[in-house]
């Protein structure tokens, strides 16, 4: 196959997705509404009364968007999801399924913590970037193992990244229980605290003292721009997309398949590593077991929901962040378990991924939608 064919294919997809209002606006809105409706039915089925359901959804809204604090919480939760989601989306674009974000987040976070507590006396202008770079490099190296195995031996990245995740849990556990990482005066697995000079500075505490929003959101925004530039404005990004759309065509067009796989995985790992750094340098200030909190798996959903497009990933990261922040409020005020948010997230994904299903349930809304 000639290279032009690949170009046409890429262009066709980009153009179609850019102008399809039904796909990009109506379906997501309906999906959220339907998911909330079904969530309400589930609450009814488990014995939650109507007033409590009303209170839950009010809390869900006020907890995510209703105040400066709520918006700060939403953005704080959205930053790591967006970063890790971008990594997974990039891998999807190149035809790779990176389930390993969780491990890459953990290792990236550990590297950031180690650098973060190791160099007292450095100015923040050097220390913080150093910690971030360490996180990106650690995540990239960890993910590149899976990429290299795929390129060199053909080992399926789904297996290798799952196994690397499992390996990573144990590795982090070991690091947290032993010097030099473990905090000297503690017996439980917990790391030393990150020095002030390596912390992601809070952005809004001049407005209100409790606002947790930190510079990680800027890192995430920059990452969105970077990934968009990489994918759509560079030759290597074109090669990534070509390899994902048609690996054989890409190889016959002279692209180096092995190199592409390793590079994609490394960049994906770097982004996930930054998500880990975002948690330890911005939110927690140290590492504890399971500090990733499943972000790596939620990020898969974020990437899928964002259609593996950088801007889409940002939007779905914000949505998931809002649900996360609002869900906490919902649990606190209405006594409805935070786990319901997981159900709503899953339903949103199902409805967005199945526009035909939405059309079946709500035919009046999508009359104009083609196909």
């Amino acid at each position, binding site marked *: 196959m000639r290279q032009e064919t690949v170009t046409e294919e890429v262009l066709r997809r980009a153009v179609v997705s850019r102008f399809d209002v039904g796909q990009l606006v109506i379906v997501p809105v309906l999906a959220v509404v339907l998911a909330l409706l079904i969530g309400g039915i*589930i609450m009814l089925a*488990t*014995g*939650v009364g109507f007033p409590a359901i009303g209170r839950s959804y009010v809390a869900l809204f006020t907890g995510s968007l209703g105040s400066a604090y709520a918006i700060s919480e939403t953005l704080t939760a959205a930053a790591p999801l967006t970063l890790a989601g971008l990594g997974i989306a990039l891998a999807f674009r190149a035809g790779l*399924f990176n*389930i390993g974000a969780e491990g890459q987040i953990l290792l990236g976070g550990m590297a950031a913590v180690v650098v973060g507590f190791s160099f007292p006396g450095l100015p923040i202008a050097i220390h913080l970037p150093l910690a971030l770079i360490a996180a990106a490099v650690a995540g990239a190296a960890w993910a590149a193992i899976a990429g290299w*195995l795929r390129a*060199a*031996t*053909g*080992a*399926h990245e*789904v*297996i*290798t990244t*799952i*196994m*690397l*995740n*499992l*390996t990573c849990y*144990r*590795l982090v*556990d*070991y690091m947290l*229980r*032993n010097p030099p990482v473990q905090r000297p005066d503690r017996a439980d697995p917990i790391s030393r605290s990150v020095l002030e000079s390596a912390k992601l500075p809070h952005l809004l505490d001049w407005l209100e003292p409790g606002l947790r929003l930190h510079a990680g959101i800027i890192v995430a925004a920059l990452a969105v721009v970077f990934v968009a530039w990489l994918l759509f404005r560079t030759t290597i990004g074109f090669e990534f997309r070509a390899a994902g759309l048609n690996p054989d065509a890409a*190889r*016959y067009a002279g692209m180096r398949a092995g190199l592409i796989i390793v590079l994609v995985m490394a960049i994906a790992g770097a982004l996930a590593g930054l998500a880990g750094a975002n948690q330890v340098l911005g939110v927690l200030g140290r590492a504890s077991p399971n500090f990733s909190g499943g972000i790596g798996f939620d990020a*898969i*959903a974020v990437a*899928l929901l964002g259609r593996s497009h950088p801007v889409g990933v940002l939007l779905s990261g914000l949505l998931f962040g809002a649900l996360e922040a609002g869900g906490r409020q919902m649990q606190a005020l209405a006594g*409805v*378990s935070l*786990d*319901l*948010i*997981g*159900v*709503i*997230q*899953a*339903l949103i*994904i*199902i409805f967005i*991924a*199945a526009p*035909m*299903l939405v059309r079946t349930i709500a035919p009046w809304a999508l009359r104009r939608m083609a196909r």
Partner: protein
Amino acid sequence: MAVTETMATGMKALEFSRRRQTQVAGWLLLALAVFVAVVFALPVEGEAAFRLTLPGDAFAVPNLTVPAQPYAYVVAALLAFFGVRQFMPGAARWTGILLGIGLLLAVTAFLTWATAGKSFSLTGMLQATVVRAVPIALGGLAGVLCERVAVINIAIEGMLLAGAFAGAVAGSLLGGVGGLVVATAVGGLFGLLLALLVVTYRVDQIIAGVAINLLVLGLTSYASSQVLTQYRFLNNAPVFRAFDVPLLSDIPVVGPVLFKQNLFVYGAWILVAIATYYLFHTRTGLRARAVGEHPEAADTLGIDVFRMRYINVTLGGLVAGFGGAWFTLGSVGRFDDNMTDGRGFIALAAMIFGRWHPVGALMAALVFGFADSLQQKLAILGTPIPSEFLAMAPYIATIVLVAGLIGRARPPAADGKPYIKD
């Protein structure tokens, strides 16, 4: 002419990657040989005693004693030979087998090293291996059934979790057998949901799988914190105890390992056997595989592709639901949030590792079960290696094996593609 040229390039690329794979395996085996010699052979002395008889066995078998140091040197020498063999002509054919045997030998050397001067119940460990392999084997089998009709099933994890939850709740209300039936049916329902999404609504299969996983995790955790914490009697199911198969359970070593187990273990054996027969020896199975390899051709021959996919994915869900019940009805009798803990993903690995074959998936599951129980039992022996690293070893070994053995395995040709009828 262009076609021949590209084919030649393709063949050359394949040839090259095989050669490189062989060499990677060679270096790995050599490194392993050095590792075994330095770590397991040099510092060790004494004999390792492996107990082969469990309390309560019909016949007592004497302990198996192995002199630790000489044994480790023999293993190191064999590994070095296997490694060198990889660099000689005609090695590619032996790469997989030698790597497998090599890793097995290294594991035995490790065991003798860890046991040197002490005694260790080998039979007990093997028994635990089989128990821990069950959910992975059943999950892998569910995966095989789905992928053979070209539906990727990432949702195994969710189906296992759904089975575990349904088993606990229904088991508490209806008793063990009722719980098992409901758990299996609930697994089947989620299989049906997956089929509905990917076959009828043409949702991307990976998205559908991930969504079902999230959905089940959310639903079960929500129900557990909202309902089960209040009504505790709903989460107190009876557990299926182990029972002996007459005569067979009296065979030394093999008896206790294979024939003194609970319903789920026997169920797993039987289901794997049935699935193998179904897929490879019946007309319907042949049709199912045809749908997985070339749905257009199958359709032309009058096979209903959609129906085939619905049936097989639902069957996969039923199997996964049964496997999920193991977590509650087969072990502890109560449900905890996310209690499958990634076992569904390991099952996915086992399926690929077992080359999309039921028996292969079972074997791979046994490898994971072995690693799991090994790590647990070794904690008793107290080795100088930190337990975290012991726990890592099986996963690293899997990566090595997958890189060495499975590189050339091939999924069903139409795997992951929706079928759109014109």
